[in-house]
């Protein structure tokens, strides 16, 4: 009997891979297995609308379970794959669940995602110290937050700042502690980091860059205060830890696949064993803009794009994952939209009004357009995304003039640029 494709990880990438396989005309069985007890759902709203309580999990489903069943995609929830074995190097093999069940497969895809990095400090295991990755995490946090008065967010990245914005909007006293000297340092340039610091401060958040949490203290095993590296103590009846994620590579390493800060894949989502594909937050891949250097992209856009690539690879078509990366973050009334990758830029141009909270920053390297960070300026975001998708550019000198719409400035990339 045909065992079909096993997709490990009922994530955004896993769901997309399953759907894309069916869309491509695949008729063999497809099994999508995940350890969470829920049908695949959207994660981004967990730190936004879901945390605020303005949406329910069912409304975040990526596909209703009966729709998956109608597509003949077998969804298995609440089961963790513990061991994977390839037969004669693949593509077929066997999977064993934590519950001791065996499943066979003809082809294997890993969409296992990443887990939150754990805080290492005395007291980090107290009740009230929370993480935010899964729907269950968000549900717990949402409950705890309703009773909390003083919230300390550890980590000034996107998750931390979005959670801080929700807590502040609910009237909590909020402190953000970030070890680096600026916020969102891995994703945006200093000018945007400074904007977000000031924007949170304006809304009453106590932002502490360049500061670490050295210990947490509590009573009856419940957190009450956090000690900072400068020796101060801050009251905290709720702590939200958002200090990054660690890609899940255990299963890949069992199979002897190359891993380097994630499961290494090529532009076609093939792992170092070309019969096994991987997609989403668990992977590192060639930079889709430059083609050189490995990047790990934690985004919905990459999960979807790479999963489509992986499905194509499994069905014998070569469709490289070289889509222009994009990303967004909602904090208060601030909508940040990012297109491209700004790492390695040597020049940037600010367009618009930073104080007025509507501006964009265009990034360049050797004159070539790399990326945009757009705050409340969706037209600028979309224009740069379009230019990058077309391989076109926008002159840095012209872009600074807010009087001209960016879309009017898109020109073909100069030869040799």
């Amino acid at each position: 009997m045909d065992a079909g494709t096993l997709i490990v990880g009922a994530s955004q990438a896993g769901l997309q891979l399953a759907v894309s396989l069916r869309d491509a005309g695949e008729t063999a069985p497809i099994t999508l297995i995940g350890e969470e007890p829920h049908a695949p759902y959207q994660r981004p709203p967990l730190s936004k609308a879901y945390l605020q309580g303005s949406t329910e999990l069912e409304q975040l489903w990526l596909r209703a379970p009966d729709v998956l069943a109608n597509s003949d995609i077998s969804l298995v929830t609440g089961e963790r794959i513990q061991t994977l074995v390839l037969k004669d190097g693949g593509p077929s093999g066997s999977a064993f669940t934590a519950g001791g069940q065996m499943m066979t497969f003809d082809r294997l895809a890993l969409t296992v995602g990443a887990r939150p990095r754990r805080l290492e400090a005395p007291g980090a295991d107290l009740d009230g110290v929370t993480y935010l990755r899964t729907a269950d995490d968000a549900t717990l946090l949402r409950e705890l937050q309703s009773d909390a008065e003083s919230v300390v967010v550890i980590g000034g990245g996107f998750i931390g700042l979005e959670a801080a914005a929700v807590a502040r909007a609910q009237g909590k006293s909020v402190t953000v502690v970030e070890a680096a000297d600026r916020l969102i340092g891995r994703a945006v340039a200093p000018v945007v980091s400074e904007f977000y610091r000031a924007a949170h401060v304006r809304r009453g958040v106590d932002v502490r860059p360049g500061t670490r949490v050295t210990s947490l203290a509590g009573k009856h095993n419940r957190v009450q205060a956090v000690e900072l590296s400068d020796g101060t103590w801050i009251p905290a009846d709720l702590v939200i830890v958002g200090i990054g994620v660690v890609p899940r590579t255990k299963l890949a390493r069992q199979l002897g696949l190359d891993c380097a800060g994630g499961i290494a894949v090529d532009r076609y989502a093939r792992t170092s064993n070309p019969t096994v594909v991987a997609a989403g937050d668990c992977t590192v891949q060639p930079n889709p803009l430059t083609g050189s250097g490995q990047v790990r992209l934690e985004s919905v856009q990459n999960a979807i794009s790479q999963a489509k690539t992986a499905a194509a690879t499994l069905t014998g078509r070569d469709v490289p994952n070289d889509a222009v990366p994009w990303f967004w973050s909602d904090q208060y009334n601030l909508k940040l939209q990012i297109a491209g990758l700004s790492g390695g830029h040597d020049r940037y141009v600010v367009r618009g009004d930073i104080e007025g909270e509507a501006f964009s920053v265009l990034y360049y390297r050797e004159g070539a357009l790399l990326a945009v960070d757009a705050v409340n300026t969706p037209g600028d975001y979309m224009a740069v995304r379009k230019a990058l998708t077309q391989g076109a550019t926008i002159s840095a000198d012209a872009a600074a003039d807010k009087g001209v719409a960016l879309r009017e400035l898109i020109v073909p990339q100069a030869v040799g640029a």
Partner: protein
Amino acid sequence: MPKVVFITLDGAQRVVDAHAGESVMAAAVRNGVPGIIGECGGNCSCATCHVYVGDDFSASVGGANDMEDDLLDLGVADRRDNSRLSCQIKVTDELDGLTVHVPAEQ
């Protein structure tokens, strides 16, 4: 539950039960309506949930908001007067029976 009717290119009708308060895009994606992608989950960031609102509903649904306007201009293949991003259309009981046409490409 309000219903939303999606009409695909080949003229086929797909009727979906939606929750009042959610977006037309969310109802479409959850139910696997072909041609509505909604990659960004309704954040006005991807322009992959473009629809043409049926004539009978264009007045009650209204036109594109500021956020949506640039995405429609730059992000969709064939913008028309009745173009909307379906993530920006909220389902209400009053819009029961809302009919939208799915474009040729997103």
